[in-house]
């Protein structure tokens, strides 16, 4: 259980991060994706087709041309979907930004903060 002081410091830092443009853009893009069932379905379809393709390759099978064409068409649909593409772009931006913020924590702390909080399955 965090002390009040530490909890408030974490909240303050979190709020500052939330105000950063890359984080707020990501949050907006996530909200847009969450509100768009068609975009979500398209992403689910892409993931399914990609996983099926990879599984076939791992079994040593050559995917049939029709399956490859279905995957290519799905990829093209994803590229045309602004909600999905915005989500991907903002995800890239926020993932580039967060290490910078974590590095500042590490500098002030004098040890690698990111390493301390890294998931244990990492």
């Amino acid at each position, binding site marked *: 259980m965090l002390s009040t002081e530490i909890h408030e410091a974490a909240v303050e830092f*979190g709020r*500052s991060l939330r105000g950063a443009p890359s984080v707020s853009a990501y949050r907006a893009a996530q909200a847009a994706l969450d509100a768009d069932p068609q975009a979500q379905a398209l992403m689910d379809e892409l993931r399914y087709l990609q996983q099926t393709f990879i599984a076939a390759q791992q079994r040593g099978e050559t995917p049939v041309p029709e399956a490859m064409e279905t995957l290519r068409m799905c990829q093209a649909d994803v590229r045309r979907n602004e909600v999905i593409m915005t989500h991907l772009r903002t995800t890239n931006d926020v993932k580039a930004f967060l290490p910078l913020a974590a590095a500042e*924590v590490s500098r002030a702390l004098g040890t690698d*903060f*990111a390493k301390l909080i890294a998931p244990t399955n990492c």
Partner: protein
Amino acid sequence: MLSTATHDPALAAATQEAEIDAVTAGATFGAVLRATPEFAAVLETGKALDADPVARAAIHAHNERREDLRVEAAMNLMTQEQTDEIGRLLDEMYAVPTVIAYVDATAAFGALCKETSTVISGLIGIDFAANSRSGGCCGG
């Protein structure tokens, strides 16, 4: 890396300032963590560990043997005898009081940091711990 400029100079400046504020807020947060009793315990037990010849010898013995067997371990070729030897050296290391104290202090501070990360993640809507290193949680 800060956001690229927009066509509106005032907006670009505000954008850049907001990002700088967020990054420098990290320095403030890091200073708060550094001032915790949990971190002080890590420093204190670390000093005691460094000053303890028994601990240093046990750590050195374990680390040296593990390094000797690094290739075997990586290739999953360690014999049972070698595995037992590493286990014994590890047990001897963890039986030293200064080692125990340092490990416990480090674990406690690590747990505190992870709790703060959970708070932060909840506010920003993305897993802060998993995305705090370039290249993802395993670094890059």
